[in-house]
């Protein structure tokens, strides 16, 4: 074990899935022509006033309730002052004192199955900035303000994580939660869900925190883990060489797989927060909170417990099925078609289907095999119409769009042979052709049974019921 311990906290920016902006009635739809969704408020023109979006407040409360947080009954907005071309007002409306969501917590599951509590310090509302385009013009930067004013929930964790893996597990947990709550689409490529990591190291056993650096520009969970691990190594090297860590912001460069220092703008850290005089305090009543609580969907933890307790799934399967909302929805849709087959459906979703989707690089929401078709396939295995082996062939055919399981079984003549007369005929032929192996079996060499099963299955082109073949073979060979 290394003598160094790493200490990690995350700041996650989740774009809230509203249709309009946090303080204006402009659309938040992604991918529009530049500046066609930037109104006078978003541009910071003189004389305009922000008006807070009710949907944003409700989404923040949803998150707060889901992480069991204190929700402030009186929340205020503050101005965070800095100059940058994609921030036309010269300040970002954010929250400083009295953020809407106070202290809460989530629990993460580690690789060894153990669980760990991670504290959430706070979650506050703020507006997103616009986007700068640096490569379009030779001498100038282009500014697109469509994103300006998009609502963000910034979720700040306690420095409770001790490894990159734990940080990723926490980030995935928050990601899963905001998707379940339907408050954020979670799209990391489009920047709807962004992670910054605060990383420091200290000698094991010390209680003081070391100097931290902040890693930005991380747009996937894989990069998050790599960026943190790189930064931990960099800091250890520095300290072991007698150097010191400088508090700074570092950008992760995925192409080079390294972090590098942003040009340090010392004065940039003086944001001079003060309450925004354009916005009155937001009052949140207990009734508001209870109304939101009553409208919450089933959350991953609850779903997992239900899958284990009432469907009889293993804890491992329930964990993986519920980690991603789309996987859980897929499983439940399949279960609706075949309510008695929870366990085999779970195995197919997590086994063959997950494997095929992964190989093809397709998300489960876009699966070429619908939940109903997967359930149909599982049902045909359960009622012995086809064997597990033939099922793989049928699965492949459904994937290729050849129809549902019944149609494919019919068209390809894959129905399992369960007629014992037909199976006995095959067995008799195989026994007649292999007198030597029959002698071996009768002399006590049990292993030869496998050879016979294989031969019979081959003769039936895989369609004989393996259980029946086994039983009938034993009877015949012993006769």
């Amino acid at each position, binding site marked *: 074990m290394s003598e160094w311990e790493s200490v990690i906290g995350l700041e996650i920016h989740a774009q809230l899935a509203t249709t309009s902006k946090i303080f204006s009635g402009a659309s938040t739809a992604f991918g529009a022509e530049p500046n066609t969704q930037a109104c006078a408020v978003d541009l910071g023109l003189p004389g305009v006033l922000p008006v807070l979006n009710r949907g944003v407040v409700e989404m923040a409360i949803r998150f707060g309730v889901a992480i069991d947080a204190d929700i402030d009954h009186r929340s205020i907005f503050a101005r965070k002052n800095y100059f940058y071309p994609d921030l036309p007002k010269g300040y970002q409306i954010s929250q400083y004192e009295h953020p809407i969501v106070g202290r809460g917590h989530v629990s993460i599951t580690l690789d060894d199955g153990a669980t760990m509590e991670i504290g959430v310090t706070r979650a506050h509302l703020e507006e997103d900035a616009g986007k700068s385009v640096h490569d379009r013009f030779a001498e100038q930067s282009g*500014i697109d303000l469509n994103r300006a004013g998009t609502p963000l929930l910034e979720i700040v964790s306690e420095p409770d994580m001790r490894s990159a893996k734990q940080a990723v597990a926490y980030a995935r947990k928050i990601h899963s939660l905001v998707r379940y709550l339907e408050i954020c689409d979670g799209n990391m490529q489009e920047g709807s869900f962004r992670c910054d990591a605060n990383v420091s190291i200290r000698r094991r056993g010390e209680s003081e925190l070391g100097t931290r650096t902040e890693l930005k520009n991380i747009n996937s969970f894989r990069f998050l883990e790599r960026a943190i691990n790189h930064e931990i190594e960099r800091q250890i090297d520095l300290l072991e060489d007698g150097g010191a860590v400088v508090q700074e912001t570092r950008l992760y460069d995925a192409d080079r797989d390294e972090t590098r220092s942003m040009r340090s703008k010392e004065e940039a850290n003086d944001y001079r927060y003060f309450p925004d005089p354009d916005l*009155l305090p937001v009052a949140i009543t207990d009734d508001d909170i209870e109304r939101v609580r009553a409208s919450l969907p089933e959350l991953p933890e609850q779903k997992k417990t239900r899958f284990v307790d009432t469907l009889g799934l293993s804890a491992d399967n329930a964990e993986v099925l519920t980690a991603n909302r789309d996987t859980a929805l897929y499983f439940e849709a399949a279960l609706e078609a075949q309510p008695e087959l929870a366990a085999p459906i779970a195995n197919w979703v997590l086994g063959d289907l997950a494997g095929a989707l992964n190989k093809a690089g397709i998300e489960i929401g876009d699966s070429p095999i619908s939940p109903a078709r997967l359930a149909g396939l599982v049902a045909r295995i359960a009622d012995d119409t086809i064997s597990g082996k033939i099922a793989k062939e049928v699965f492949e055919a459904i994937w290729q769009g050849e129809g549902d399981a019944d149609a494919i079984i019919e068209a390809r003549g894959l129905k399992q042979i369960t007629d014992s007369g037909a199976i006995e005929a095959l067995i008799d032929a195989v026994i007649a052709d292999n007198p030597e192996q029959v002698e071996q079996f009768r002399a006590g060499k049990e292993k030869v049974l496998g050879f016979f099963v294989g031969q019979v299955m081959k003769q039936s082109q895989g369609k004989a019921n393996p259980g029946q073949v086994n039983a009938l073979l034993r009877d015949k060979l012993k006769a």
Partner: protein
Amino acid sequence: MSLKPDDVRNIAQLARLHIDEAVIDEYAADLSSILELVEQMNRVDTSDVAPLSNPLDATQRLRDDSVSESDERDKFQAIAPDVADGLYRVPKVIE
């Protein structure tokens, strides 16, 4: 509390204001006297008074989450000093 010339330079930098070196001391004195006034107010015992974030005794009205603005880019860009390809153009910003 009294501000030193360097404090004034720092504040000016944060506010992107150019201040002539010749008047820095004058600014330092003026700003210090404002801070002195604040300090005077700070001496009042307010331990049983809740902090005031807004002088109006009211709370924020909320609007429904719906799109009410249409695209008026052409009008906004007509008054901008430099636009191209739908983008506002500014001096090159290097990250």
